[in-house]
């Protein structure tokens, strides 16, 4: 399938159909996934997939069609179907497509070595991780999962208003989950590295030691008395805060009146130590791209600046509906999904204190190593935060003992307000990244 040719053909069919506005989104993916076990490949999967989506709008009524059936007659039928759906829908005045705008500058998202990195190199990376995990500590008894993935995605977005954007990107990822056992007690730990460039993947030593450290350091954990105490989120757990915050700055929730932060631009909503940014223009970062899923050039949005709410994230529809404008944050989960608001590289800006220093200055509190079920409570309208938690109990600035079987609970706005120190260890390793930070007080539920 030639993505450019297909999109031009679809655009021509849309124009011939007489519908007022039309958009074509074509996506082609080639992917590899390898699972290793006992120094041998256990599963090898190759995916070669692609398809297109059409948004057709007539008098603010929208039809959306997607298909992976690329035969000529099927393509024609898809356009006809979309026109028919649009004409049978009801009007929503915010349905419209984006106007062309000059593209952002160069944003590197494609590793042209993807085709030339030998399969053997990928396998040897996994083999090294496996060997290093078992060598880490005698308590590491099993590897629950060890896999490598890479993929190459080509996208074309074109619309009848003149937008025509084309791009290619690559993604590499290695993940490992280990099991540690001691005296009949079992704990698990995992680590995943993802990158746009093969060479940016974490080395096997870092993957293995981080996964194994997480599992082994939780062995011997015990619960805590129910209490209020400071909680330190590290780089592995801090993203949960950003994901909860995102629900409240998601332009769709704001436009629909579902966000607690709606109408509060300019207000102090967090501690002065908190600055949150979404930036799609960082070369090599996993969430970057030259344009978003509607063809709007990407940008950088300061969401919270020194605790003050500055902006929400919008796609074109939610921007219009909220009386604002798109921030280039339209995102699609593949070609089968309608564009929605998404973050690109969402991060909390680093501070000046080292993670060690943060621990040392904590009289007593919980250093969170893992969260469970934190995503279930995400609710833009209440901001409630509640999660299962495991970690290390800090006493007098030092680790006293591992902690398990506790919950932590608060409200996301209270939490952001109670951030009393931010670490200097921010790394943009995932699409949502946070440095280590401490929240002055949260409810810890134990016995």
């Amino acid at each position, binding site marked *: 399938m030639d993505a450019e040719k297909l999109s031009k053909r679809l655009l021509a069919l849309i124009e011939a159909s007489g519908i007022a506005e039309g958009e074509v989104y074509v996506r082609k993916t080639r992917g590899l996934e390898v699972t290793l076990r006992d120094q041998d490949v256990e599963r090898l999967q190759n995916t070669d997939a692609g398809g297109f989506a059409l948004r057709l709008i007539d008098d603010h009524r929208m039809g959306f069609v*997607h298909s992976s059936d690329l035969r000529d007659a099927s393509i024609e039928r898809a356009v006809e179907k979309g026109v028919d759906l649009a004409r049978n829908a009801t009007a929503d005045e915010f349905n419209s497509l984006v106007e062309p705008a000059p593209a952002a500058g160069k944003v590197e998202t494609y590793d042209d070595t993807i085709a030339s990195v030998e399969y053997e190199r990928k396998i040897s990376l996994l083999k090294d991780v496996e060997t290093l995990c078992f060598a880490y500590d005698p308590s590491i008894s099993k590897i629950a999962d060890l896999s490598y993935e890479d993929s190459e995605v080509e996208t074309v977005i074109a619309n009848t208003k003149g937008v025509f954007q084309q791009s290619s990107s690559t993604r590499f990822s290695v993940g490992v989950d280990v099991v540690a056992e001691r005296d009949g007690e079992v704990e698990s730990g995992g680590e995943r590295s993802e990158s746009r460039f093969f060479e940016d993947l974490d080395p096997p030593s870092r993957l293995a030691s981080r996964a194994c450290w997480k599992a082994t350091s939780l062995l011997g954990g015990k619960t805590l008395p129910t209490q209020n105490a400071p909680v330190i989120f590290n780089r592995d757990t801090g993203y949960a805060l950003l994901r909860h915050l995102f629900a409240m700055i998601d332009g769709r929730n704001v436009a629909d009146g579902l966000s607690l932060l709606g109408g509060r631009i300019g207000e102090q909503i967090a501690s002065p130590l908190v600055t949150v940014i979404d930036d799609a223009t960082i070369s090599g970062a996993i969430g970057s791209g030259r344009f978003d899923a509607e063809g709007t050039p990407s940008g950088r949005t300061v969401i919270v600046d020194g605790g003050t709410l500055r902006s929400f994230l919008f796609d074109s529809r939610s921007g219009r509906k909220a009386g604002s404008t798109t921030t280039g944050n339209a995102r699609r989960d593949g070609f089968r999904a309608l564009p929605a608001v998404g973050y690109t590289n969402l991060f909390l800006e680093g501070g000046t204190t080292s993670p060690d220093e943060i621990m040392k200055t904590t009289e007593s509190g919980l250093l969170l190593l893992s969260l469970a079920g934190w995503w279930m409570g995400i609710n833009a309208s209440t901001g409630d935060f509640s999660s299962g938690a495991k970690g290390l109990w800090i006493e007098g600035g030092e680790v006293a003992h591992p902690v398990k079987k*506790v919950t932590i609970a608060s*409200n996301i706005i209270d939490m952001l307000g109670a951030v009393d120190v931010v670490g200097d260890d921010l790394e943009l390793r995932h699409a949502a990244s946070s440095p280590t930070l401490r929240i002055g007080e949260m409810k810890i539920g134990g016995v």
Partner: protein
Amino acid sequence: MMKRRDFVKLTAKGSIIALGAPALLDLVARDKLAAADVLPPELKGVLKAALANGGQFADVYLEQVDRTTVSLAGGKVESVECGIHRGGGVRLLSDWKTGYSSCDSWEEEELKRVAGVASQMARGGGEPEIEDFTRKGERGIVAYEISPDEIESARKVEIATHADTIARAYDPAIKQVRVNYTDEIKRIVVANSDGVMVTHEVPLVWITVSTLAQRDSKQQSGYIRRSAKRGFEYAGLAFAEEAARESARQAVDMLEAGEAPGGEIPVVIGSGGGVVFHEAVGHGLEADGVERKTSFYTGMVGTRVGSDLISIIDDGSIPNLRGSFDYDDEGTPSQENVLIENGILKGYIYDLLTAWKLKAKPTGNGRRQSYMHYPMVRMTNTHLLPGDSKPEEIIEATPNGIFTRHLGGGEVDTTTGDFTFGVREAYLIENGKIGAPVKGATLIGNGPEILKRIDMVGDDVDFWPGTCGKGQWVPVTSGAPTLRIASITVGGRG
């Protein structure tokens, strides 16, 4: 307007050229798979290509999904969506290793190409043996009356709009409503080198209604989903109405909620809270974790894992439930599988690969998200069998604690058995009576421990629909009667 199926028949009989000479396979599928006797020679060729470098087993999976979705927010239809997805995947098993490759096509040539990619997992040769196909017929477990793809989109828009109207009319406090209506028909063909051949049509209807209630400075949300493997006959206005009313009620009733208490306390889970067993037990009984020895329940068949009150079943053959089907995605018939009986672990659930590795019988639990995904061991409809207690007796017998009416999602670490699940709607129990609503509760515990702490089980089983994620997403249900956990850690702020 011509009905889609009529159109399909017409093309199958006459206008082949107009479709751009599609593969024979395609026409067969579109004509309700009726002429499947023409399939074997082509699929045999694909399986031969997969086994060209050796290996012990190959299968091919073809899938076509026709889906319609209506999304509504703020009283307006945001979009009406239609998706057509068609493709195939070929798998090769060689010395317990899996090669898998897929394409967006049913064309013989493309399928042979991806079979060639999958075949690279094997390093041998030899003349592949393919058994003659024995086709298994439909079993009627997910039979439907009206195919949703024969219904005009305007009627589906009407269902979504009706849900919005009902939710708003429930109470003036309801300020925002979002509705998502989806229906689909999935048609699959599975054929393997052992001669198994299955064609299966699976309908699915799904509606979600989210509501937001506001009063004074308080706001709360409601969220209800309803789903079944049924045709459009299930998706009437009454179905939308019930979901809308319940979602609105939940949001309004929770408006006055205080903070849930924290700490270890008794919890009564209202009927329908089967997600507890799905997370706390079910995932640990999937044979892939047992085979890797990473599951807590490895090697424990025949031992006591719970109180006498605990009998847990996974059953993909319950008519028309969201987790049901005639055959799984490897062609194995769905069946009732007893996992735990009166507290004793009886067995695990398997797909083909884990069954062969562990010398067990496949249980009809080999499922995939789509043709782009290899099969895995997955649950279907997982439920706790009812006990003797009346739900009201369970409440009365509980001096203090929490009653959960609606649980949210959950997750589990199958290695440790530690699980967490969210609570959407809960109430305090005070002196054996249901009291004030409370919000923000999370329940955490350990699966094996919790099974021993369940001390009362009601007689009122209810099934709730969900979508289970394990790297791949599949539709499931979980079922349970009202039950009491003598003590469990509740994470609240009160």
